[in-house]
């Protein structure tokens, strides 16, 4: 190749640019020196209102789920303001759109903390978005309240995990299946962190407790091609399917499942990512009689839930269902309020110190914050999809289960982390 003549002038420009930037560059703290220069961002608590950040995907593939969480966060803010605010200050919600894109979540988290100087942030849905914002909240020593059940194996000092960890959802679900005599499981999941980690736990449980995993398949997120997987499920001789598919894939999976002649009677499916909202979009006729595992259903009894459902439907429409992540988001604001009031301050360190033992009469039943792990004691509930599209509870754990994100209290899980 001839003609590749770079003139000396071009190189001169480049060299001078590099030189100039080197001259302007002063070097900061080294890693591990522990002297990061006051990186903690100061939240603004000077006025008569304080800002709270709401960080959800309002656009993109996750918007359909995350907008419902955003709505119930706004509902909680409105209720708290109506009853006098927190420490006498009204809350001003600042919404940022994570756009279903993980680096955007990190950017918006930083905007909330540094530009808006929020006192706390509520939101995120996918594990990937949580992992993306985690270093941001840790860097600026600001709090995130995360409202969705997740795969465990995490304890950030600046995140409160209000959704279930694995020992409050997946392990009780396995206990339930075992008790029903359904011991041969087929695992179907979307290809991302939560299903893969959940299935690792399921396999360890099965091996220790005499159950058998007869098949394991992953579909790319958003995939709608399930004829192969359903055929494999049909021929595997399983007693039940453990379903960790997420989003749209469930629609295709359950349609295919029904057309292959499989039913809730012949081969039940237990799903951990299908709540009331999803039942509606998949279609009740495909899901009737199938099982789910959560900590809250719209039908959960109690005055607190009646009030929550009524308030939500009054604000957003009579036909709108409420679901587990929505409920967790709703109570996350109340739990934070209780912590702040116990601490008597919005200061992050004081709020964290005050968190242990905070209880709240939540729609899902009484919840208690475990200060050490910054998770919440929650009651596990197995439900069955009814013909009206609502989920009826068929079993619960009787009392709130202590959160154990690393499954340290389970001998069979010792090899997992």
């Amino acid at each position, binding site marked *: *190749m*001839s*003609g*590749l*003549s*770079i*003139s000396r*002038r*071009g190189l001169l*420009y*480049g060299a*001078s*640019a*590099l030189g*100039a*930037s*080197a001259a*302007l*560059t*002063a*070097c*900061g*703290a*080294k*890693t*591990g*020196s522990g002297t*990061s*220069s006051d990186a903690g961002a100061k939240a603004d608590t000077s006025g008569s209102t304080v800002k709270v950040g709401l960080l959800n995907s309002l*656009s993109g593939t996750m*918007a359909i789920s995350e907008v419902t969480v955003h709505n119930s966060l706004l509902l909680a803010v409105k209720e708290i303001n109506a009853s006098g605010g927190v420490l006498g200050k009204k809350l001003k919600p600042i919404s*940022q*759109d994570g*756009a279903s*894109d*993980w*680096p*955007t979540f*990190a*950017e918006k988290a*930083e905007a909330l903390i*540094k530009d808006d100087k929020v006192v706390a942030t509520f939101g995120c849905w996918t*594990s*990937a978005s949580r*992992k*993306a914002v*985690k*270093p*941001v909240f840790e*860097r600026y020593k600001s709090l995130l309240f995360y409202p969705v059940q997740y795969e465990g*194996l995490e304890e950030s000092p600046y995140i409160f995990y209000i959704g279930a960890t694995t020992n409050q959802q997946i392990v009780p679900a396995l206990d339930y299946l075992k008790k029903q005599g359904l011991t041969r499981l087929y695992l179907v999941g979307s*290809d*991302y*962190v939560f299903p*893969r*980690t959940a299935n*690792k736990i399921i396999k360890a449980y099965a091996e220790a407790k005499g159950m058998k995993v007869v098949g394991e398949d*992953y579909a*790319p997120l958003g995939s709608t091609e399930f004829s192969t997987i359903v055929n494999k499920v049909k021929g595997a001789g399983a007693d039940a399917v453990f379903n960790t598919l997420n989003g749209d894939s469930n629609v295709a999976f359950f349609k295919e499942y029904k057309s292959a002649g499989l039913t809730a009677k012949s081969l039940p499916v237990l799903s951990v990512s299908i709540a009331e909202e999803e039942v509606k979009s998949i279609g009740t006729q495909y899901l009737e009689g199938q099982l789910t595992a959560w900590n809250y259903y719209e039908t959960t009894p109690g005055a607190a839930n009646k009030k929550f459902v009524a308030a939500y439907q009054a604000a957003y429409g009579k036909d709108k269902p409420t679901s587990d992540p929505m409920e967790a988001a709703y109570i996350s604001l109340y739990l934070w309020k209780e912590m702040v009031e116990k601490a008597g301050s919005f200061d992050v360190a004081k709020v964290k110190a005050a968190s242990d033992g905070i209880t709240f009469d939540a729609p899902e039943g009484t919840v208690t914050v475990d200060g050490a792990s910054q998770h919440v004691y929650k009651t596990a509930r197995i439900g069955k999809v009814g013909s009206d599209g609502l989920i009826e509870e068929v079993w619960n754990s009787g009392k709130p289960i202590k959160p154990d994100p690393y499954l340290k209290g389970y001998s069979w899980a010792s090899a997992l*982390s």
Partner: protein
Amino acid sequence: MKTITERLRVPGAFLLGAVLLLGIAPVALSDFRLSLLAKYLCYAIVAVGVSLAWGRGGLMVLGQGVFFGLGGYAMAMHLKLADAADTGEKIPDFMQLYGTSDALPWWWKPFANPAFALAMTVLLPMAVAALVGFLVFRRRVKGAYFAILSQALAAALSIWLIGQQATTGGTNGLTDIQGFFGYSLDDPVNQRMVYFVIAAVLLLLMALARQLFVSRYGELLVAVRDSEERVRFLGYDPANVKLVAYVVAAGMAGLAGALFVPAVGIISPALIGIVPSIGFVIGAAVGGRASLVGAVLGAIAVAWAQSTLSDEFPAAWTYLQGLLFVLAVGFLPGGLASLGTVLRRRRTPATPKEEKVVVMAGEAA
């Protein structure tokens, strides 16, 4: 003969850019805004390569996410290993959680060496581009087929990365990066240092690209874009000409990905697939893909608009972005950089032959 003003135009513009990026921006912007600008400049570095390969070479490079990702992962793998070494661990944090063994996979091991990892951020994308380009251009695959192939490659790499959760972090990607070659990224001073490095690299690559544009190779590349057959009959091999542009653009995208990691703190399959790959060319298309400055400013402007407008109109931004792309490609193929030329042409109708000359001169900046 060139007049003095003409001769000083390019160095003057370069100096102005350098003063803006290295002098004014760091003083005028808060730490947070500066870190956003650092991110936009990474996209601008990709745009420099897009301007070369697509603007000058006519190669519809719709898979730059692949090279951006390879560079980003090469850098992030090194930084994760350095973080792990700092805390006395043998393997990065996510491998302890999701991995199947306590040993580092063999293909991670060389990335512990900083020199190797740095070289790989550029060489790995270039090598992949060379292989793909060699196979594709030899067979005279072009136009839409080349674009589809690029997209397929981007989709394949992102799906593969998601599947390898134990060794690549799966959908989460590689996150939670603490240090950058020994400097803590928690420190705002070091964040500024990263910004300066990115700004300097952008200026350097713009200077390099501009020299390529005005060199004999640059003319040959435009000739291949406009009439590949004629160039072939003149005795040149268009495949080689295209290959060089494609490989250089891939190297630039790789370097951009590598710099993106310390600036933003994450690299994930979400930055590699089809949608982000299209995103990489939208800025260049809107600003003017054949004009270096147009492409760079376009990339920065579109990224900035995304950050700002998506706050106000979260649902509308995606449509607006698509609309911009369609409008730019359909009605203003030269992008905003050609707006002046287009308007001038409207006012003074010229003979077709002269028109061509005007466009070429306008694009040469």
